[in-house]
């Protein structure tokens, strides 16, 4: 394998081409915009991807098609932008020119007060507008899950989002008009080379292919692998860790593949939550709500299922559901692969079954057969854009007599890892699926879990809710009316 190298990062920034030879592994897009380029419309509110004041759009080619998504510039590394088009608020309205329809709608509806969060809201709404010119209230709320406003109470911002379509035409938007030209420019940036930047302590690598990545990692087993940077970004912005050498997965189209087979779906490790969404909700409609509640839109656009697994967090959003579904994970080292049940990957807090030089390549989720009942419940202090206090996933299969023939229950937030409730499962297995079985299951929880008390929830609450979720799951197999809060209703004023 001969690999050609490039020693610069190249991307488009608004209407300019940028080529950088000197990029620190920890340089964020936000600091680059504000400090290096003096583009100060993009704000820092939290530096951890939770407030959205730094929202910009990143356009990239996926299977040759240009796609713009909102991202958090504060936790996005500059090096990861190679081959992308970065669009900031400065691109929307020309100096002394008319405002962009998104901006005009915000002004007309009095949707800004202090104004600090506003450019971020504008960019999120712009991203939504390009994808969906006439969104529903739910779609607007979903697009704004990653944007905090402390002044307005959001009502005026929702009014603005609804008004955009009447203010301007999508077809006249510069990014729509110039789409082909930008696509050509981005294609021209794709040279298929491995990008290598920086010296020993500052090394950044963007492998050219999956095989190249495997080789790079084998040669640099201590490297930090960065996919969406929604977690690693905070290692830098909050813990000031030196993460070099860094390997970015940005160029690996192979890691963005979703394959749907006859008996399951395989997500390559670099597939973002947003990319996975259509396939996930088609094949696992029970995962829709969970998926809609992962981070905010920006985080879903950046973050990956593979990263959610690989970082081993006990409160990651997807592992409980994937474990209960019987998912397996494939790891690769050099050219060697091994596959193990996902639950076996999580060894203990902070420790996964991943060898030095090995990486998570894909996760496979088998389809449910029609006899399985499945549900996942995420419980958090705030409904959207929050981290689980408890996340419980339940799968049962009943036999012809209404007995539990097969059962898998997994929890996040209840132990040092995402964990199966083996004792609860044992208590249920073979039992008639009724209240008595649920009660028997209740008693077994203490043998499975001794959860912690922290700022998200007390141990007592976690235990109580975990049990109650089993109750809910049972109830929902019996009836559907008023056993859950209906979150689908929202009326704009």
């Amino acid at each position: 394998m001969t690999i050609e190298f490039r020693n610069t990062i190249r991307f488009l920034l608004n209407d300019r081409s940028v080529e950088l030879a000197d990029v620190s592994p920890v340089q964020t897009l936000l600091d680059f915009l504000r400090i290096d380029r003096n583009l100060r419309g993009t704000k820092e509110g939290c530096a951890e991807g939770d407030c959205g004041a730094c929202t910009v759009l990143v356009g990239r080619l996926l299977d040759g098609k240009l796609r713009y998504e909102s991202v958090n510039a504060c936790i996005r590394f500059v090096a990861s932008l190679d081959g992308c088009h970065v669009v900031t608020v400065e691109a929307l309205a020309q100096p002394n020119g008319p405002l962009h329809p998104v901006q005009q709608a915000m002004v007309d509806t009095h949707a800004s007060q202090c104004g600090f969060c506003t450019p971020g809201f504008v960019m999120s709404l712009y991203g939504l507008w390009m994808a969906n010119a006439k969104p529903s209230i739910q779609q607007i709320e979903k697009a704004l899950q990653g944007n905090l406003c402390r002044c307005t109470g959001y009502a005026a911002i929702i009014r603005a989002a609804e008004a955009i379509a009447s203010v301007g035409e999508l077809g006249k938007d510069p990014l729509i008009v110039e789409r082909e030209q930008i696509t050509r420019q981005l294609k021209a940036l794709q040279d298929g080379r491995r990008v290598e930047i920086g010296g020993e302590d500052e090394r950044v690598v963007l492998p050219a292919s999956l095989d190249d990545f495997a080789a790079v990692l084998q040669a640099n087993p201590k490297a930090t692998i960065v996919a969406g940077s929604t977690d690693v970004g905070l290692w830098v912005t909050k813990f000031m860790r030196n993460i070099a050498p860094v390997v970015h997965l940005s160029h690996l189209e192979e890691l963005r593949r979703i394959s749907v087979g006859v008996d399951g779906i395989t997500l390559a490790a670099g597939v973002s939550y947003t990319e996975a969404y259509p396939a996930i909700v088609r094949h696992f409609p029970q995962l829709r709500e969970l998926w809609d509640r992962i981070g905010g839109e920006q985080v879903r656009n950046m973050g990956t299922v593979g990263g959610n697994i690989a970082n081993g967090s006990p409160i990651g959003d997807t592992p409980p559901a994937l474990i209960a579904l019987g998912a397996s994970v494939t790891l690769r080292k050099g050219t060697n692969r091994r596959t193990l049940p996902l639950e076996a990957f999580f060894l203990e807090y902070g420790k996964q079954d991943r060898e030095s030089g090995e990486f998570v390549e894909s996760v496979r989720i088998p389809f449910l057969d029609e006899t399985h009942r499945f549900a996942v419940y995420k419980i958090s202090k705030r409904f959207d854009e929050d981290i689980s206090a408890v996340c419980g996933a339940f799968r049962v299969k009943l036999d012809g007599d209404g007995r539990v023939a097969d059962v898998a229950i997994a929890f996040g937030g209840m132990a040092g890892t995402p964990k199966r409730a083996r004792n609860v499962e044992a208590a249920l297995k073979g039992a008639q699926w009724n209240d008595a079985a649920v009660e028997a299951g209740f008693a077994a929880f203490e043998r499975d879990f001794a959860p912690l008390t922290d700022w998200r929830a007390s141990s007592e609450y976690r235990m109580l809710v975990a049990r109650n979720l089993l109750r809910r799951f049972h109830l929902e197999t019996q009836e559907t009316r008023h056993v859950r809060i209906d979150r689908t209703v929202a009326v704009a004023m």
Partner: protein
Amino acid sequence: MNVMQPVVRVRGAVHDKERHESGHKHVSGTAEYIDDIPEPAGTLHGYLGLSQRAHAEILSVDFEAVHDSPGVVGVLTAQDIPGENDISPAHKHDDPVFATGKVEFHGQPIFAVIATSREAARRAAAKVKIDYRDLPHVTDVLEAAAANYPLVIDPLKLERGDIDAGFARAKNIVSGEMRIGGQDHFYLEGQISFAIPGEDDEVTVFSSTQHPSETQLMVAHVLGVPSNAVTVNVRRMGGGFGGKETQANLFAAVAAVAARKYRRAVKVRPDRDDDMAATGKRHDFHVDYKIGFDDDGRIEAVEAVFAARCGFSADLSGPVTDRALFHADNCYFYPNVRLRSRPLKTNTVSNTAFRGFGGPQGMVGGERMIEDVAYALGKDPLEIRKLNFYGGEGRNLTPYHQTVEDNIIGRIIEELETSSDYAARRKAIIAFNRENHVIKRGIALTPVKFGISFTKTEYNQAGALIHVYTDGSIQLNHGGTEMGQGLYTKVAQVVADEFQVDLDHIKVTATSTGKVPNTSATAASSGSDLNGMAAANACQQIKERLVRFAAERYGVSQADVAFEPNTVRIGAERIPFADLIKAAYAARVQLSAAGFYKTPKIHWSRAEGRGRPFYYFAYGASCSEVSVDTLTGEYQVERTDIIHDVGKSLNPALDLGQVEGAFVQGMGWLTTEELWWDAKGRLRTHAPSTYKIPLASDRPRVFNVHLADWSVNREETIRRSKAVGEPPFMLGISVLEAISMAAASVADYRIPPRIDAPATPERVLMAVERLRAARAG
């Protein structure tokens, strides 16, 4: 010729729904915040080093690794402060810039690193080695009381009537306690200051501050220079909410000290986590109460102690805890009452101003008592509320002996009951709850009465400076600061109205201590009341001179000179405003004026606990309906209806935004926003990942917000408007009460639900469990 004149109004006069003066800049990213100001060459950056202990002696500090870190120019400690190492706004000398000898909370600043970049300063600050000797620490109010911690300031007592007789007469007495959590401001723009040294002892500080004059004074104290050497400027803040009333001073002081020491521009901006750890918040309270009432629910006597977690220093805890007592009555007449505050010291960050300034906590306590009465009697809490409203012979005197003269709560409640269809919905909800065992619903309609004026009487003054230039354009400056509330817009509307010129002829300039001196904080909702009046006064001075000049020049009487839309009518003639200005300049008429205003009628004796601390009251009410999941404690606000009183609104669009925003912020305070300290005294909810303010999807699913457009302030405020900043914050209480009702349903509404705030899903579920057990057992 008059008949030819079309009837026109100026654009953007008072009462118009004018857009925010910076709206177009907000949306395009061109509104300049302090971190956006282009830095002069050689600008340095400061980063604070914070205590990692809640209470400890500092044995030694080793800066070697800090100094060796790349980009470091120097380290500042208390020894580098040329003046006083103190920024206590209460002048108690208990608020050091940098701790010396000992630290009193986790997150207290000990030093600052000055470096060539913020990144370099921040990384270097983390390399310090400090040896501590731990001392016992207390973070909780009740633990502080138990440990005999001191009070940070003298407590207040409000007393009226004879509570012993009142309780003796009462057929029913309920006592209880409630915990009310604090709140982080979570302004989107964090604290920031940028200091530029001048000649001699001068320094100019760009500070994200609500109180430029105090920032000026503190910087002067810390530098050991007179106030005239310090200029503080602020064009706008990215949110304040009280969090930049005193808390900005620390960052201004550090930036100024560094700027003087290194003779370079210095910017200081903490990371969000450090901002939340090192700056004060809304006070947490513990309320201990006893209420006596008759069988109808009519209150006979109230006694309550409001203990507050003040943190390590006084800061504004005195007036904050005072205001809690001032609002413990909310809209209710207490025939016999004794209220006491207990401002307790704790080893936590010093708590400070936050929208409502203690009032919300007092009001939540008062409403908790009402709720207890209702559940004790098995009645609708609204019935108890209405029974006890101020009004009627001998029922208008507050616990602080001010007579309520402008009461309009009855009409507001009546209108809201109708528009929200309260009675029918409550009935339907009770029926729903009988049928459903997992999801329970609740509804509550709660009133607000909020007193307007600084309780520190001297703060109720303001200044403005208006220049009219020879081209007829007007520059407006006043002592108030813009933090998003639209103050600049409203005051400009007042000026447009006074001169009868279109709003775009008026430019509002950054608030500066160099233009208007000795200003009060933009706080206590007072911004437009005070500064609007001061600006009007300045306009009137200029207008008087113009009228005198015009009458003389044209030989008409002064009564025949009138300011009409963009023109001035002089006798039978009309000339453009700009032409009059040009002529006046040529005739050497002064076209600039400093305006002034002081609020009339108010007085207050803290020692006696009596007076008229408030010029007037603002009123409002909200009705919220919630669904609660009794398996998890999760909830959703299904609908909220609001009617809120802003008098005759200066700008109904901006006022509506204030009401909507305040409600959601108040709701957040009482639901998902939880401050959580660990055993080491470290705040663990110190970033948006862990501290959860409301999102767009948390706002009520149906949200009907209206201003009481019939209301006119009976006092002579600016154009008969009322203050709007704080009062609607307390409309959020209806959400807590609605959740309480849903929880109470599991015990047939006969046991007071007593959910502490914030009502996180955990607290709600635990209350449901408790109520179920109480009912069963």
